[in-house]
C-alpha cells in the first residue's frame, strides 16, 4: 500500500464531516440511505473540484453549513434528504 499523504487539520475536518453524514445515513431507511449517500457524495466531490485548496474562508463556511445540516439530519424526525436545482429564469 502506498504511504498516505499527511492530512491537514482542515482536511481531517472535511473527512470527519463526510463520515458523519454517512453514519447518519445508516440510521435511516435503506432506500433513503442510498439517496442521502449519493447526494452527499456528489456535493463533496463537486466542491473538491470547484473550491481552491487555499480558500480557507470558504471551506470553513462550507464546514459550518455542513455541520448544521448534519445536526438536522441526525434528528430522529428527519426521514429523507432531497435537493432541488434553483435555476436562472431565461429572460
Amino acid at each position, binding site marked *: 500500500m502506498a504511504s498516505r499523504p499527511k492530512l491537514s487539520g482542515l482536511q481531517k475536518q472535511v473527512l470527519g464531516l463526510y463520515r458523519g453524514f454517512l453514519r447518519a445515513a445508516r440510521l435511516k431507511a435503506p432506500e433513503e440511505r442510498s439517496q442521502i449517500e449519493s447526494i452527499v457524495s456528489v456535493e463533496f466531490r463537486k466542491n473538491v473540484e470547484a*473550491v481552491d485548496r487555499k480558500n480557507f*474562508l*470558504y471551506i*470553513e*463556511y462550507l464546514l*459550518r453549513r455542513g455541520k*448544521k445540516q448534519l445536526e438536522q439530519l441526525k434528528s430522529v424526525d428527519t426521514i429523507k434528504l432531497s435537493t432541488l436545482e434553483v435555476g436562472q429564469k431565461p429572460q
Partner: protein
Amino acid sequence: MATARVLLRRGSSAARGLLPAYAPRTTVASPTAARLLLVQAHSSQSDSAAAKPKRSKTFAIYRWNPDHPEKPQLQQYEIDLGECGPMVLDALIKIKNEIDPSLTFRRSCREGICGSCAMNIDGDNGLACLTKISSSSGASTITPLPHMYVIKDLVVDMTNFYSQYKSVEPWLKRKDPPSSPGKEILQSKKDRAKLDGMYECILCACCSTSCPSYWWNPETYLGPAALLHANRWIQDSRDQYTKERLDAVNDEFKLYRCHTIMNCAHACPKGLNPAKQIETIKKLQLQ
C-alpha cells in the same frame, strides 16, 4: 379671492423665486393697509429655487458572498442625505433599493426593539435603526459584528450566542406549586424593581461581540448578554432555583473570563449595564 401679498424678506431668493408668479397680482391689488403677510404657495418651490448644496455621504460596507467566494471587500456607496432618513438603517435600505439590491442585512422593527440590525458602525457596535448617520465628511464604515462567523455581507451566525442564552435556562423554575393554585405567583413592587435594567435586554449581541474576552473564548465564556440574563433569573424573587443557577455559572470560564473590560456597557444600544450585573453575580458567589 384673497389677494396674495408677498413680503420681501432679507433679499431671500425664495421670495424672489415666488415673485414672478405673483407679481401681476401684487401690482393690481396694491395694499393700502399696513398688514403684510408672508405667503408661500408651495414650500418645495422655495427649496428647488434656492441653491441647496447636495449633502452626500459615503458608506464603506463589508461585502462577502459565499456563492462567489473571494476575499471580503469594503464596497463604497454614495448617497444623498437630503433624500434619506437620519438613521444608518435608512441609508442601508436606500442603498439596497436604489443602488445595489444584493446588499444583505438583517432588519425588522426599525425602532430599536427587535435587535436584528445589530452591526459595527464606525468601530462601535450598535443597532443600525438607532444610530444616526454621522454628519462628518469622511466615509462611514459598516462591518458585521466583530469576531462572529459571517454568513453573507452583514449577516452573522448567531447560533452560538443563542445556545449560550439557552444554557442559562432563562425561565421560571419552582420547586413547589404556587400558593394559590391556577393564579400568578405574587411579587412585590420592590422585588419587581430588582429586575429593572435586565428585562429590557433584546439579545442584539452588541455587548457580547464588543467584549475582547468573548472574542478569545466564544465557546466557553458565556458573554455579557447571557450573564445579564442569568442574573435576571437569579434576582427574580419568584424563582426558587437561585442556588442551582449560581452554581451552574460558577465556573472559571463561564463567569470568570470577565475581566471588567466594560466594553459591554459602552456598546449596549438600550443603555443597559451588563458589567454591573456580572459584578452582582460575582458578589453573590462569595456568599
